[in-house]
């Protein structure tokens, strides 16, 4: 009794191993012929596999593309950036904050940090030639380190400098420069921008630059930069809120974070600073992306299981329709193992066909999605290889039971039918 019960899994194990090695030419040829003879049904049974493999490949590929697009923004900024945010803290009725000098000294006193910048949002509508500049540019008080950390490049002139102190100079983002040049300025350099009733002369114009979100919400194209000291004078009550810093080469983000926290702990006792490393954020995003991809793959796998059940159903029908054939093959000397291999081969061949079609369908679908969304097309080779592997696995897994059933048929009973 116990041996009989134990025999079943042993057969399964043996058959699953053998199914791979015994894709002999004769077997495969016979399988193809037999599947071709029930073409219509084979195709129907394949739909599940094709859709399953296809959707997994399309989903995984698209997921990778989306992940890549999302990461690009962050990685463009560099992975060595820290975003530092003041946590609003009041001590004995007074709000604690850091100063521009604290930021300057952060670089001098913390070897883990090579550059740091803070900025001040001045507000107000800058005007040119008596009219408001379109798109409502932002006015920021800044230093040259902000340009350095963000890799802002100049099209003409120079950036504002801490040496400008409170002189009324300004540097225009590409969008702002275009706007005033449309409004009649010949060379933008040297023109005057009116801000809160005072004139600021343009000393520099930036090249077009990407929006920086990480820790800054900086849109350089639509920004007017003025010297930080000058901004301080205009916006006297506006507190500093944030700092961006660049980590020294070779220093781990965790170590730099700790150094910054400890610096402010000593510098402004009681002030709490929240530090986020770009690398950590990127890692987190990447992990989330992986999870997302996995989720998509799991959803696709469900349709694969449905496909597998379709194949199993086809094989079960095939076995019961071919009882006479099975009986005859047994009569002329086929062992149970031969019968099992014949049917597993058939199921594997069927699923491989489905897998191949699925890979094509999946690649075509992701091409379509990428074209539609305007993303760069790429298809996950891993997913394609896995698709073919998984489909042959499904062939074995869902073919074993019907094949096992076929092999257990008694030859006389099978021949009588």
């Amino acid at each position, binding site marked *: 009794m116990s041996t009989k019960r134990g025999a079943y899994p042993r057969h399964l194990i043996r058959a699953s191993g053998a199914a791979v090695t015994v894709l002999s030419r004769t077997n495969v040829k016979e399988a193809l012929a037999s599947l071709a003879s029930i073409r219509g049904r084979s195709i129907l049974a394949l739909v599940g596999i094709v859709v399953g493999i296809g959707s997994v490949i399309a989903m995984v590929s698209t997921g990778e593309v989306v992940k890549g697009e999302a990461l690009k923004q962050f990685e463009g900024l560099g992975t060595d950036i820290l975003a530092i945010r003041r946590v609003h803290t009041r001590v004995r009725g007074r709000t604690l904050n850091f100063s521009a000098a604290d930021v300057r000294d952060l670089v001098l006193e913390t070897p883990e940090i090579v550059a740091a910048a803070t900025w001040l949002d001045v507000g107000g509508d800058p005007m040119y030639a008596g009219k408001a500049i379109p798109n409502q540019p932002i006015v920021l008080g800044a230093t040259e380190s902000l340009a350095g950390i963000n890799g802002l490049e100049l099209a003409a002139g120079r950036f504002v400098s801490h040496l400008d102190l409170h002189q009324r100079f300004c540097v225009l983002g590409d969008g702002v420069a275009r706007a005033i040049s449309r409004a009649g300025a010949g060379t933008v350099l040297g023109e005057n921008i009116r801000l809160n009733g005072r004139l600021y002369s343009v000393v520099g114009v930036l090249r077009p630059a990407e929006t920086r979100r990480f820790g800054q919400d900086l849109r350089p194209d639509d920004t007017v930069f003025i010297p930080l000291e000058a901004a301080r004078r205009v916006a006297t009550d506006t507190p500093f809120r944030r700092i961006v810093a660049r980590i020294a080469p070779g220093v781990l983000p965790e170590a730099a974070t700790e150094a910054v926290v400890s610096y402010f702990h000593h510098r402004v006792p009681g002030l709490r600073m929240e530090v986020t490393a770009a690398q950590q954020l990127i890692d987190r995003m990447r992990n989330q992306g992986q999870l997302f991809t996995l989720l998509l793959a799991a959803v696709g796998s469900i349709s694969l299981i449905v496909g597998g059940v379709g194949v199993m159903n086809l094989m079960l029908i095939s076995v019961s329709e071919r009882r*006479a054939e099975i009986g005859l*093959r047994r*009569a002329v*000397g086929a*062992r149970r193992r031969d019968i099992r291999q014949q049917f597993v081969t058939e199921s594997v061949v069927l699923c491989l066909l489905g897998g191949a079609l699925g890979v094509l369908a999946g690649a075509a679908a992701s091409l379509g999605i990428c074209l539609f969304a305007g993303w760069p097309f790429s298809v996950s080779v891993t997913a394609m290889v896995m698709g073919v592997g998984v489909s042959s696995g499904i062939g074995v897994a869902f073919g074993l039971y019907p094949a096992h059933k076929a092999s257990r048929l008694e030859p006389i009973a099978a*021949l009588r039918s």
Partner: protein
Amino acid sequence: MIRLEDIRKSYRVGPVTVEVLNGVSLDVHEGDLLSIMGPSGCGKSTLMNIIGLLDRPTSGAYFLNGREASGMNDDEVSAVRNASIGFVFQSFHLLPRLTAAQNAGLPLIYRREPEGRVRRLALEALDRVGMADRAGHRPNQLSGGQQQRVAVARAIIGEPSVVLADEPTGALDPDTGAEIMDMFERLCSEQRMAVVIVTHSPEVSERCRRRARVEDGLVHEEGRVPTTPDQG
């Protein structure tokens, strides 16, 4: 070559045990042409299945070429069927997807013979049954008699010791049936194979040198009637 000793076979149908074979003893020698007759349900098919190793007796001993069959496992039984026994059925049992040559060559596939050799031997076997010119035809392109010839080719391709034929002429007209019987006679006299035929037909039985009847689960053999292949 074949020796049955006190073979019994019973089936359990619900609570009732039905005795089909009740102690059958029988010898078949090479070159024998033996017919087995008997009313429907008398157990002649069961006897055939036991001789053909498709079924196992409840008790008794069965020797095939000196080997006792009851101790063999399923793989060994399959190998012995493949090597020593050829089957011919009333309904031919050809595989519809395969050509005549592929059908005839089927037993050799399970001997792991190389493809080219299988094909060559299949053509030879078809030639022996006069079907060489139909090698590429599928069963549905052949008449009943032609199909049965292909089935005979399949039965003899592996040079078995014994060919077991279950109503081989049952689905054929008398003339075609007679041709099949001619072939069996030649196999016995020329190839020294043994042929055992289960039949209802007195004409078929009359052409066999040995005749047996199964009645009440026992085999009664008539006295040997000497015949030559071209008689009857």
